[in-house]
């Protein structure tokens, strides 16, 4: 099964990268972009887990390894089974 985990800064944490991206877009004439935020995406190939097991395992490993809860939040979804 393939899962996707999206990690982004909490809204309370300001995101200078997103700012820079937006500035870059503006200087290139894409003024219609009013806000930009940048995050990370992980795509994992997972084998031998039932849907239920995944429901437990994925948030666990995300929390433990992929995300720093002090500054980041995450969401995840199953892409293919």
């Amino acid at each position, binding site marked *: 099964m393939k899962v996707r985990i999206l990690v982004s800064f909490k809204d309370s944490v300001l995101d200078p990268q997103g700012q*820079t991206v937006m*500035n*870059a877009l503006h*200087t290139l004439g894409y003024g219609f972009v009013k806000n930009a935020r940048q995050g990370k995406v992980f795509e994992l190939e997972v084998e031998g887990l039932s849907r239920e097991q995944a429901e437990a395992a994925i948030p666990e490993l995300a929390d433990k390894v992929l995300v720093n809860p002090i500054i980041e939040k995450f969401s995840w979804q199953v892409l293919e089974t």
Partner: protein
Amino acid sequence: MIDPKILADHNLTLEEYETIVRLIGREPNWTELGIFSVMWSEHCCYKSSKVHLRKLPTEGRQVIQGPGENAGIIDIGDGLAVVFKIESHNHPSFIEPFQGAATGVGGILRDIFTMGARPVALLDSLRFGPLGAGRNKAIMEGVVSGISSYGNSIGVPTVGGEVTFDPSYSLNPLVNVFCLGLARQDKIFYARAGQPGNQVLYVGSKTGRDGIHGATMASAEFGKETEHKRPNVQVGDPFKEKLLLEACLEVMDKNLIVGIQDMGAAGLTCSTTEVPAKSGLGLSFNLDLVPQREAGMTPYEIMLSESQERMLIVAEKGKVEEVRQVFAKWDLEAVVIGEITSGGRLVGTFGGRTEIDVPVEAVINRCPVYNRKFEPPARTAPRLDWESLPQPADLKAAFLRLLASPTIADKEWVFRQYDHMVQTNTILLPGADAAVLRIKGTAKAVAMTLDGNAAFAALDPRAGGRLAVAEACRNLACVGAAPIGVTNCLNFGNPEKPEVMWQFKEVIEGMAEACRAFGIPVTGGNVSFYNDTEGASILPTPVLGVVGLLEDAAKMVTPGFKAEGEVVVLLGRNGPELGGSEYLRAVHSREEGPCPGLDLSEEVKLQELCREASGRGLLRSAHDVSEGGLAVCLAECAFLGNRQIGCDLDFGEEMRTDALLFGESQSRIVITVRPDDLDKLLGLARKKHVPAVILGETGGTDLVFHHQDREAVRVPVAEAYRAWKEALPEAFLIK
């Protein structure tokens, strides 16, 4: 199977192909054709440059290893040696600035540690198009952050380099990276096979479809379509390389291996042929055993892949297990893929079939060598006609403009992104004439600089070659170091153009003459041809990397003024030479010659004097006069001390004031001495027959230049500093 199209794709001529057929006694198969095409590419076999490179002096008492290995090696005493080399990564850095530059750093690092040396310093010489264009800015940002990310992560300080700008680099930036390593003389390793039966191990990253034909790409001219063709560029993995570095140095330190070769350009092909060829032996291996990142790779792809962070190691059967253990400690695999054989053939099997069977000698040593046609360009560079050049009414404005020109302006924006202190050896940080590293456990220090003035080389290639060597050595003399070895990176256009070939030949002959004058051996280098885009070539750009030694690190001299009330002395002679100067370009937008003259014997005397004076502790500061002339040199002296210190100086020469202040006459060094030491210094200068002129004193908060008792320029140091300091950051400010 062979048609012109296939040969063209492989950058092989019909003649070359027929030679291949003759050498192996049959038509090569697809994989074998690939092998020959990369190994016979300009990048790998120097077919157009060899005949001229031979003219460079390579002999020297301290030379342990000259050209021909991964890097040159020079004896620095105490059982130690410095191992250094420079490499270009121009084309990849244009296509993907960040990764292109990063993998350039990775490549040169491997060249150094394959020889048993721990890399201790990186320098980078960068050339970009004018920063007015967003495209050039993006390239520069990408290149600088690519270098910083790789070097910082692996923990090798980037301690110096140069950055200059010219329109000819707009679609063809130059990224030349230099690395120096420190080795114990009894722990130096080469690409050797030992004897038949020795095991061949593959270590490092898995092989993927990266950068296939990178080597041939680096040997082909860019056309419009390149933007779309976009050859595959590799992604660097500095962490992997750090593991590889530590593991390799550990197996070497434990004497577990016979030979080792990195897989750079031409990857597995280069290493599996060079290693046996250097020992007159053969190598037979199983391509299926090569660790692969992707499924379904063909033998052709496996052999030509330029995946980074890989090495080939030869070890005796009995040692293989221990080698494996060391690599396992560093979380790396070491896989036996074959063994050394007698008989001089490279034999590779794939899926049980023999896929490769060629004589290594043919691949390595039978590459055709060309003495390409050369002739001077029809039109020679225009000569400056003084009448048509107005003296600026406001010399101060011209001065500030010059200080803010990107080529002269402060480069901290660049080197602040590099960790230049890690390993705690850097005793002279970026910003001075040369970088200086102490050598722990000795009193010595090693000094390094990269220099090359393409504007001069464009006006007069031969002079440009001589001037580059002279300036580099002068930069070393300023810090008190004696040059001990040279490496160089020659960046040129398409060698099939006779005028490019002429520039190349002239530059080399100029360099050779200068190296002889200084008595320094060239221990290696790199040639980057085909720096053409849409038919236009870059300026001929020789970049010299010169390494020097200070027997006593405590005697090091730095460029900044040290205190008020010290005497400012000019060693050397001012001449009215504005040709090829930054002043002409930045203030008058003119590219005219002739480039400054150079008397090598005077230059040598000047540098000897500077070293002797610093050796006797007479010098408080020393800085050479280069781009921007005297005025800029003196401003930098005022900026670079622990605090800013002005000076009030008087110049007597009969000549135009702008020529005096901004001319780039060679063989000049500005020094300061304590009043009490002045007579000793002047005496020494007389003894050495070097002109020494007292210009005035340090002190105050202004830079004041009088010319023939008229005040020509007065500017607060702080104001000049701002112009110089803020130019680059300004250019990159996102508004």
